[in-house]
């Protein structure tokens, strides 16, 4: 069974995504922010991390960098609605900083399933963007 660590500060989004992931046959560990997520990363040893970007107490890109440093091979999916401005710049940044996939909110169940399956079956998958737009440029 795929063990997903879901890091998301919005309680409603978190519970919806949890239901979606359980429907896909995953077990889910929930964390309400990046700090809590990093703590659970060590104790729960998940097979996949899904993290929001805009969060209190360690935002998503920072969390991704720390996960990447601690577990270089762990698949990471970054999700975001872009905040008030609708600016999705940070999803691109998340991918540049180590996320394997990015998903734009609201998340479609089919996209989530494809993403989870791709990463669970082949964790070395280089990752794709499901948020549209151009491929990220080299830093």
């Amino acid at each position, binding site marked *: 069974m795929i063990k997903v660590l879901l890091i998301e*500060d919005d309680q409603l989004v978190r519970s919806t995504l949890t239901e979606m992931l359980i429907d896909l046959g995953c077990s889910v560990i929930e964390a309400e*922010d*990046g700090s809590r997520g990093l703590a659970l990363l060590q104790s729960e040893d998940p097979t996949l991390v899904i993290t929001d*970007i*805009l*969060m*209190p*107490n*360690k*935002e998503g*890109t*920072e969390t991704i*960098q720390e996960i990447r440093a601690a577990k270089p091979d762990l698949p990471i999916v970054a999700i975001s609605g*872009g*905040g*008030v*401005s609708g*600016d999705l*710049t*940070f999803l691109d*940044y998340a991918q*540049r*900083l180590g996320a394997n996939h990015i998903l734009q909110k609201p998340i479609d169940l089919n996209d989530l399933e494809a993403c989870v399956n791709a990463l669970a079956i082949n964790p070395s998958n280089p990752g794709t963007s499901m948020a549209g737009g151009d491929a990220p440029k080299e*830093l």
Partner: protein
Amino acid sequence: MFDASISKSPGGDDSARLPSDNLRSTFLSLPSVLSRAKVRSENIALAEERSSTERAAIERNRWHCVPYSPANELRPRDVEAQELNASIAAPQAKPFNVWELEFRYWPVWDVGSEALLAFLPEAVPAITQRPGSLLAGSGASRAPAVNGADLSADDAFELDFRTLYDLARKIEQLASRDKRFPMICPVHFETMASMRLRQEYLSLCSHLPGVWRRLLNFEVVCGPSDVTPIRIQSIARDLQAYGRSLHWRAEFGSTSLPDLNYTGVAALGLRLGEDLIDEGETMQAMDSFALKMKQLGMETFVHGASSKSLATNAFCANFRYISGQAIHPAILEIESLRSFEPLQLVAGPRRR
């Protein structure tokens, strides 16, 4: 608005037009400032004579609160004289020695131009290395700032005067190296609410040369949320004569915001204090503030973004100007303007 295009005027050396005399002596030659400084030094002398227990009590009472009230705004001269006498007799009400402050500067990120484009001063108590010696040390960049909230009008004025003095000195130093950067000059609402103090402050501003005024962006701080648009307009009109623009710092977490339409205020913003409620609530408050300002078509700023979470949230909430530890640590010496892209917010300094 800040303007990145401020530069040496073509064909001429602006620094040649800067005053060569010391601004401090210029300021201090003003009778009102001189008498104020005298009162201040007398108070310090009195305080020095007190026992350590009393001093501890004085320390505890330093930030006594005299909240703004419209009824206090225009006080008769005799009342002010009584208050002045009372303040001399009760030095424990005085919160700081105006000449024992030093200033650190927060680089302010202009998101639109992707540059650290202006500098915001913050007063910190000077670090005393040995008796009678004030030394600006590296500790000043981390020392707790002087809390400008809840000051009496006179103390707020003194802090504003000292800030303006330091800013002017900094501009003068930079100009001597042929550098000109926009500066944000905080001024307390209390200073501008009292006509007497406002006139004193404006008379200080009138000593600033025109070329400096093009660098100053005034930011009114500690204003009440129920201030009337007419009062804001009056303050804006007076300050705009001496600066590029006027910003207004709203009280964080306040449910009502001043109506700034048609008042001449260019931007409304917040300062996130050290005593924040949890970050989640702070981010929600920032979002709702930004949404409200977007509806009003106002530019917004936020100071004190101490974590990447807060800074990233400010960016995504469309705040135009952002400063704080997560953007750039406070500095004691201003050297240059720097570009700053959103990626640097999350990935650190740009690789060269």
